């Protein structure tokens, strides 16, 4: 069991670094419609979209800062602040509902002492809703740090959470 825990690599967060941000953005600046890719790139680098990057994005894509914020805030994926070290998303859509995702969610919330959309006080785990991981034949599904895990049960969930604790 203990070897397996290394599969779930926690998300690293970098400190704001204007030069790095500019390097990320400039990869996409000449790409038609590249703002989305630039936002993905920034989030991969920093773990969220630092507000300090808005003016850089605005400059690169010839937009106003408001327009940049408008795009960033439209999409569920783009974060305004860093997530916890581990991110658990529990599918809330119909197929997983039919297999007990509502009670699984309740179990997760009780176990972690937080609600969907929150991060534990120690910054260890963020718990989030997701609407379909496309793994509906083996519902209910969750994802842990980007890895989908099928046929989730309360026991398996508790075990996964415990493994993240061993690891960090």
């Amino acid at each position, binding site marked *: 069991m203990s070897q397996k825990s290394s599969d779930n690599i926690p998300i690293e967060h970098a400190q704001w670094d204007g030069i790095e941000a500019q390097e990320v953005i400039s990869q996409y600046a000449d790409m038609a419609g590249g703002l989305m890719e630039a936002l993905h790139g920034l989030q991969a680098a920093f773990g969220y979209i630092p507000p300090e990057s808005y003016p850089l994005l605005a400059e690169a894509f010839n937009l106003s800062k408001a327009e940049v914020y408008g795009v960033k805030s439209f999409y569920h994926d783009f974060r305004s602040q860093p997530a916890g070290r581990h991110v658990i998303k529990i599918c809330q859509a119909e197929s997983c509902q039919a297999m007990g995702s509502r009670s699984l969610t309740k179990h997760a919330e009780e176990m972690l002492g937080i609600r969907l959309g929150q991060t534990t006080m120690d910054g260890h785990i963020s718990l989030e809703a997701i609407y379909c991981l496309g*793994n509906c034949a083996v*519902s209910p599904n969750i994802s842990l740090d*980007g890895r989908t895990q099928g046929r989730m049960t309360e026991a398996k969930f508790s075990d996964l959470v415990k493994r993240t604790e061993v690891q960090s």
Partner: protein
Amino acid sequence: MTALVKIYVPLETTALSMGADELVLALLNEAQKQGQDIEIIRNGSWGMSWLEPMIEVETEQGRVAYGNVTASDVEGLFRADFLKGGAHELCQGLTREIPYLKTQDRLTFARCGLIDALSLNDYQANGGFLGLKNALEMPPQDIVDQVTKSGLRGRGGAAFPTGIKWNTVLHAPSDQKYICANADEGDSGTFADRILMEGDPYSLIEGMIIAGLAVGATKGFIYLRSEYPLCREILSEALLNLRDQGFLGKNIYGSDKNFDIEVRMGAGSYVCGEETAMLNSLEGKRGMVRAKPPLPAIEGLFGKPTVVNNVLSLASVPIIMAQGSDYYQNFGMGRSRGTIAFQLAGNIKQGGLVEKAFGVSLRELIMTYGGGTFTGAPIKAVQVGGPLGAYLPNSDLDLPMDYEAFSEKGAVLGHGGIVVFDDGVDMAEQAKFAFDFCAVESCGKCTPCRIGSVRGSELMAHIQAGDNVAENLDMVRELCDVMETGSLCAMGGMTSIPVLSALKYWPDDFTGRSRK
């Protein structure tokens, strides 16, 4: 050392989510311990998802399958001599003889599971690029006509005839045209696009190249949802391979035609599966729905004529071009021609992908293929066609899977997703969820959807609390009417379908009489 044995272990999301990578390690370790030479081939999934990870061993008789294999089964499998196809409780027999698979009409998914998804040799040895070769020798109009004659309709849900869309783009004058593959498969209960992109990515790309030749487009985009990271890796590698081999870029396959493709990622927005929202997102904007007209075929991506097709529509084109429109057209019923990939999901024993000609009944899919509910409890409701599809009661399961038969019932076939619920489901809860989901995912452009969804959720909360139920239900009906007639796109316009179908078939769940 004994002779080398080939073992197939899918590199596919479902298999991975059930431990395929750990299994590969265990197989390699055990083989080394036993002094046995094995080669592990990472194929796609056959779509028998409930058996994943399903591994196959190549024997003289053919590939023998073992289902639901975990790392802890590996020692036992070696003891049972599984490398020769030995008997074991997990053995499913020869893959091609498994009834679930054997009785399907595999056209679009012919290679899924069979081949190493990224092997161009495998792809070409199994009919890949025959369609493209034919298309390269045909004038654009003939390609469009062949697709039109095949009867292929959009597999994303709207079922618009693909050939007619292509014809509009072909005849729209422009210096630049685009092909966009909509890979934003957001409907719960659907995963066919994913299985195809992970298991046979070249077929999607071949379809896009053919579409480019047909309408005169030189640039394609695959708009992929961010929930599918493995698809991105596989598609990116597939595109590199094809550029290397001259199938993409300038002078494709030695012709004077050019075409190239980029993969772009969505960012968790459901409404971006709507084609005009998708185009805005591809342009790097908020995924707001556009009013139509103008149609994307006239003014699409960056204002240029654009073909927007679902992954499976595009992936069905190569076989149409390879085998001819009659071959494809001969499958199906009525105006629904060819095959569709059904996806069995939710509370189902044997969930997975079933590609069948149109006309098969919902009951046959759920009972014969799916084996009934996972829990063993009776079926209460079946939602077909994603979150905006109708909930159907057990008594309606004999409905043939056909676009027209479904729309007569006020239901939608959509992208072919089938989500089964057992008798534990509270349909008022599902109706409330339909509004909640719409509130979360609405792009906010039109008022009926943006505000109606929130009001609908509030009304449902009152109804669930037993508050002025009759009056509030009337308001829900009225609200549904407003949303249906006044919304810009299907998000707000079709949220009424799950709500009203739940209310129609299970009124007791709303009036509180059957509430626990």
